[in-house]
């Protein structure tokens, strides 16, 4: 359901797709950076909290991911101002879950087995049903 102010379905779904694309890019870049850095608890135990923070912030991949997430945040604000949360949140989340699974398999080389694909699909469908 769209809010009282007029927003065409094309604009609404374009905004939703754009927010999801930025989120997928950001999350995959951050996941890639954290995978290279390793368990933050171990890094913190070895170098302290400041050292761990410095290690994370020194990663260009992490910074690129954080930039995508920052853009995602403002795109999200714009979308929420024009599209009802009940449509925007599940729409973005559903695109996000499926897109992230595909991207994780392709770019992060994660072993997305049948159980994980099922989990992703169940969440995507479940989130959509929650919005009805």
């Amino acid at each position: 359901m769209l809010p009282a102010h007029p927003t065409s379905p094309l604009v609404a779904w374009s905004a939703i797709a754009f927010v999801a694309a930025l989120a997928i890019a950001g999350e995959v870049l951050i996941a890639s950076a954290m995978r290279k850095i390793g368990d933050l608890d171990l890094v913190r135990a070895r170098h302290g909290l400041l050292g761990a923070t410095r290690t994370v912030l020194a990663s260009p991949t992490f910074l690129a991911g954080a930039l995508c997430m920052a853009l995602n945040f403002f795109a999200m604000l714009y979308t929420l101002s024009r599209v009802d949360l009940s449509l925007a949140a599940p729409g973005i989340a559903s695109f996000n879950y499926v897109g992230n699974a595909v991207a994780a398999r392709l770019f992060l080389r994660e072993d997305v087995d049948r159980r994980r694909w099922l989990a992703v699909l169940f969440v995507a469908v479940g989130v959509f049903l929650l919005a009805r």
Partner: protein
Amino acid sequence: MLHSGSPKAMTHKLTPKQYGTLLAVVFTASFGDALLSRGMAQVGPVDFHHLSLLLHALLNLNVVCGIVLLIGFFATYTAALSWADLTFVMPATAFGNVLIALIARFWLHEPISLSRWLGILLITSAVGFVANRPARTSLEINPELPITESGVAV
């Protein structure tokens, strides 16, 4: 125990602290999004000709509280991704959607339709699919990276 051999053997069991991190991801994301939505409803619609309104939104208390929670989300999410796969963290933290629906039903006394209960059932099942399964996997192992007891290459 060092893991070697099959690339799919990179796994580790979560500690209570790591479960706590996943719970923190769930709570901060759910309540952060809810506060942002409430704040933006107060700010009103933003169009391309008045994008500066987005900066004005940063003065709204609900938006500010939402941002604080989402910073917490970002920190805990980043920490989770340092020891778990993206495709593990996503379904494991999807329970936040259920949390919001349950708050709406039992705290705000909103009715929950049959399709919503079905959605809750599906998401809960999805969490069950990844629970007690490997948190970290890889189709390939970089032989130059030593693998720690927790299964994480450092």
